[in-house]
């Protein structure tokens, strides 16, 4: 069964169109990265999937309509919308009590086990914890819930690199078991590249690219071209060209690896580079971007 099935999803806020006929299909057991510029509609799409906002079009999450069945859906879905949403006045112990009281799939022992690996005290209030600790706390709670879908909206925003690394490491090692599905949006794309199994680019409320990471690695190749071969390489119609340390880096879609190897070192581009290439072409202008 598909975990998320969206067809022609639309949402407008006043005169702003946030979702402009979004189609999305996510199978169970995938880790999907939803990547897009600010205001592309990522959070709106996630909010629609979580039953937080009404929408037009068709949307089923785990076979349910999120808007009319939010309460039931939340038994199977967990989410971290932003690190700042845990109530600041609550004590850690109260938080565990509350979630254990209302959530039939919450394993308190498991959550305590995760918390013991951190420096978080159960007697502390959330407002006394650092930003990184709040993220650890939220993650500990979410990982102790036996959910089928986990939605992460900028979960590591504002955290330092150590916390970010730990966050994704524990997610992969202690939580992901290939039957659960994870959907994540983030601006720190480099850090999730090795985590994802699927990639979706979203811009202006529409999907502009959707592929699995295997496809991504087969389809897109990047070559740092020696100057004397630049003209020959350009003749193969790269989708994007950028400058790096005085060399031209050309990004190709569906090109032959052997042929490209003649121009220089061939490698898989980073998601960030592909993002710039796709979004740059999509908006009809080639942007000079320093990555």
């Amino acid at each position, binding site marked *: 069964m598909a975990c998320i099935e969206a067809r022609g999803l639309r949402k407008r806020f006043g005169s702003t169109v946030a979702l402009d006929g979004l189609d999305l299909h996510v199978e169970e057991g995938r880790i999907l990265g939803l990547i897009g510029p600010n205001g592309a509609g990522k959070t709106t799409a996630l909010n629609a999937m*979580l*039953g*937080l906002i*009404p929408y037009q079009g068709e949307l089923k999450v785990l076979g349910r309509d999120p808007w009319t069945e*939010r*309460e*039931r859906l*939340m*038994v199977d*879905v*967990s*989410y*971290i*919308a*932003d690190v*700042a*949403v*845990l*109530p*600041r*006045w*609550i*004590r850690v112990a*109260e938080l565990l*009590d*509350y*979630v254990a*009281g*209302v*959530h*039939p*799939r919450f394993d308190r022992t498991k959550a305590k086990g995760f918390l013991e690996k951190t420096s978080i005290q159960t007697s502390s209030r959330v407002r006394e914890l650092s930003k990184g600790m709040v993220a650890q706390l939220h993650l500990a709670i979410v990982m102790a819930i036996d959910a089928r879908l986990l939605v992460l909206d900028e979960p590591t925003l504002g955290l330092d690199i150590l916390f970010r690394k730990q966050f994704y490491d524990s997610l992969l090692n202690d939580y992901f078991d290939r039957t659960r599905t994870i959907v994540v949006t983030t601006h720190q794309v480099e850090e999730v590249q090795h985590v994802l199994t699927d990639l979706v680019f979203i811009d202006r409320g529409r999907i502009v690219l959707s592929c699995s990471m295997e496809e991504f690695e087969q389809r897109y190749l990047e070559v740092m071209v020696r100057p004397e071969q630049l003209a020959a390489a350009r003749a193969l119609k790269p989708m994007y060209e950028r400058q790096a340390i005085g060399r031209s880096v050309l990004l190709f879609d569906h090109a032959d690896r052997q042929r490209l190897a003649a121009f220089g070192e061939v490698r898989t581009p980073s998601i960030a580079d592909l993002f710039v290439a796709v979004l740059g072409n999509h908006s009809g202008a080639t942007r000079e971007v320093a990555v």
Partner: protein
Amino acid sequence: MSAGSQVMADVQDAAPAALSSTGAFYWSVRRELWENRWIYIGQFVVAAVFVLGFVFNMNHWLMKMRGLSGTDPAQYWTTIAQPFDIASGLMMGTLILMSLFYSADALYGERRDRSIFFWKSLPVSDSTTVLAKASIPLIVLPLLTFAITVAIQIVLVLLSCVVLPANGISLAMLWKGLYLFQMWGMILYHLFMAHALWPFPVFCWLLLVSGWARRAPLLWAALPVAVIGALERLVFGSANFLRLVGTRLIGGGAPADITSGEMLPTGPMTHLTPLRYFASPGLWIGLAVAAVFLVVAVRLRRYRDPV
């Protein structure tokens, strides 16, 4: 997936589907008490201040007690029960303020700190949350006020047991004028009838506005009341609407329907009149209006964005 494991998965899926709504309600109420500690800390502080005040003014009361002639039972009652009356009146006043400020913040606070995203990530429905919030001024706060009032009065009795004999006044005087259990029964009745059920539409209105306003929910809640009041004054020259809201809020307006006789429920002459109270259309109209406000509040929690 094999057929066996499919069945297992189905069984697993079916079990938690029966969400315990009583559990969710209970924990939602607990959450309100954690989040709004001031609603009971405030009551404790007022109670403590009153007891201290009583201790410092004890001489005044002792003089009055000494001056009792011992013939007029009404005079007995007023003098002896006075501090007990003041205590219950003071706690009722505190209750009104606590219920008022609590309700005006109830659905606003979680939107202001955006923790609503967290609460909504758990399998608790909007109606459960809103009903849990409405139960604070309807049930939890009156019960708490009752408990604190009784506690203060027990402290007063204990103090009297020490102080009165030490000043040569017989304890028998105290027992003659005081009917503790009868008084407590009346206070409990009065708290629920006059300060919970009767003003419930006002609290629900505040709850509704707290789920709608982007800032200052109390001011927004007062605005339409003030506008309607002003229009009535301009057009009809009367102030019935303002009086209606005001008396609802302080638990007045229908004292005859709640109890007969004294406004304060502690007097021995006061009789409970629950039949008359529950037969009064004012009560039921008020509760119907409250129900409409609650339905709107649930919808607002579902649709409205955080602040």
